[in-house]
């Protein structure tokens, strides 16, 4: 069953079309990534389904239900930036959020501990660092143990340890059977965390599906290729030898080693044997499957245009 169905959604800001006939549905119990460059319309999309922005045309339904005011109380959402009363403590801010959601205050200590903010719960929000603000916002989404969570750039402003913690929390929530919708411009994040992905650019949905489907579907008229990293004691010699190999599409050298792109029938074994037969012993051989980044660039083009 689809948790969220979006049908032909269009949003104009004056003359600018922020979303153009976007149609997608989010299956239950997935981690659904919405991936796109800055300004592609991710936040607009989430803003609309949370009723803080109004559609120009099209519609959406949450779990097949049209009335969304009550439903939103059961969704934990972090949209764009942490929004809190600056003069109140973290704890008091969560009390307000809990009251609006119609919950008691019994969850507050627990969610503050989950994001490591319990010791600072009495401090005013405006004394928090960027990362602490973000963690308070995530704590707020966990109030009332909702079955659906919506995160817009959840690791924004966090240090590496914080990023890892939040990703672990997200995966753990999914393991508990919760549906998570997550917008991000960080490919790595989507690849590491999400089960499904929608790629959106300039308000247009480019592709949508499970992460493995999106990765494995090739762009039409383009032969799939794989990327291999390799190295040897004498990289210049290695390069000259590789040039004679069949099935090679391109070769590039940098200080870290050599990268080759070849047809997908070339395996590590073939490369290794070829080099050894030609008198070079490899000290590094690493086959990279096509990453989301490659796919992303194939789909959106290499220019960072908006």
């Amino acid at each position, binding site marked *: 069953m689809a948790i969220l169905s979006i049908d032909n959604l269009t949003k104009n800001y004056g003359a600018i079309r922020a979303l153009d006939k976007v149609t997608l549905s989010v299956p239950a119990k997935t981690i659904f990534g919405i991936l796109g460059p800055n300004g592609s319309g991710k936040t607009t999309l989430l803003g609309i389904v949370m009723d803080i922005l109004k559609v120009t045309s099209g519609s959406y339904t949450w779990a097949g239900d049209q009335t969304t005011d009550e439903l939103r109380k059961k969704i934990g959402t972090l949209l764009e930036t942490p929004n809190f009363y600056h003069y109140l403590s973290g704890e008091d801010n969560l009390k*307000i959020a809990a009251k609006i959601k119609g919950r008691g205050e019994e969850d507050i200590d627990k969610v503050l501990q989950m994001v490591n903010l319990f010791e600072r719960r009495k401090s005013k929000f405006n004394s928090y660092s960027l990362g602490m603000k973000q963690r308070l916002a995530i704590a707020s989404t966990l109030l009332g143990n909702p079955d659906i969570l919506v995160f817009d750039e959840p690791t924004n402003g966090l240090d590496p340890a914080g990023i890892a913690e939040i990703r672990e929390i997200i995966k753990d929530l999914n393991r508990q059977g919760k549906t998570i919708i997550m917008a991000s411009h960080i490919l790595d994040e989507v690849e590491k965390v999400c089960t499904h992905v929608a790629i959106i650019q300039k308000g247009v949905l480019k592709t949508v599906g499970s992460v493995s489907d999106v990765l494995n579907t090739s762009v039409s008229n383009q032969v799939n290729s794989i990327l291999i990293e390799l190295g040897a004691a004498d990289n210049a010699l290695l390069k000259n030898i590789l040039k004679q190999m069949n099935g090679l599409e391109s070769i590039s050298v940098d200080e870290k080693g050599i990268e080759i792109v070849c047809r997908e029938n070339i395996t590590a074994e073939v490369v290794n044997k070829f080099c050894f037969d030609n008198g070079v012993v490899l000290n590094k051989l690493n086959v990279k499957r096509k990453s989301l980044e490659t796919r992303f660039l194939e789909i959106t083009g290499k220019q960072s245009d908006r």
Partner: protein
Amino acid sequence: MLNLFKIEWLKIKTYRTFWLLFAGFLIFFPTAFYLSAYKYMEMMATSKNFQERVIKTLVEPPFIFPKVWLASAWMGGLFFVLIGMLFILLITNEVHYRTHRQNIIDGWSRMDFLKAKFSMLIFFVAVSTLMVFIMGLIVGYVFSDSNADILSGIKYVGYFALMATLYLMLAFLIAILIKRTGLSIIIYFAIVCIVDNVLWMIFSLRDSQVGYFMPLEAVDSLVPNPFKPAMFEKRTVEDYTLIIAAVAYISVYGFIIINYFRKTDLKT
């Protein structure tokens, strides 16, 4: 509604600016009212020069029953702009902190947000009206004779409540439409102090009565300056027509607020 008010109260109960402005009204209004009553009565009791004697004969004494209700309502109105400013601040703060978005994301409907703010409006009107009533009572008892007619001017307490409601509805409308704190407060003061008076002057030329129906003048005229001699009063329209006008303005402002806020994108 009570539930919404409790949440609003959580937002402001430790907010220093709220207490500063609110206490400003609760302290300055009674103090200023009592002191001016005291000074005025002292001056009248010992009036020697010509000017003071003219005032004494032309003006019905403002600080004794029944006119003290009008004086209390009028002076309460002067200090009420503090509350107007505070109310604007509480609404534009939500936009500034983007919490108006968060409240709705967390599950309020847009109407819930407006109702919550309206519950604050009722709170401010109720507290300030109570204050006007208490000060009228105290000052009236202190300076009146024992056989004074206490209740006959008490309608002015009701007029004050109507005036306070209209002033806050205007503040509500400006804050929702303008969103920025500073600009909203400037526009509010411009309308309260300048625009409404200019409109009143233009529409009161040649003894026209239209001026009394200007947005704020309608309620201002219900609570006229108690120091103005009655013979200078040119208003001939009845109180009840002004009450109808005020209620109409309140409804129109409310309608615009609801219509706008339900359909707009909540941006900052």
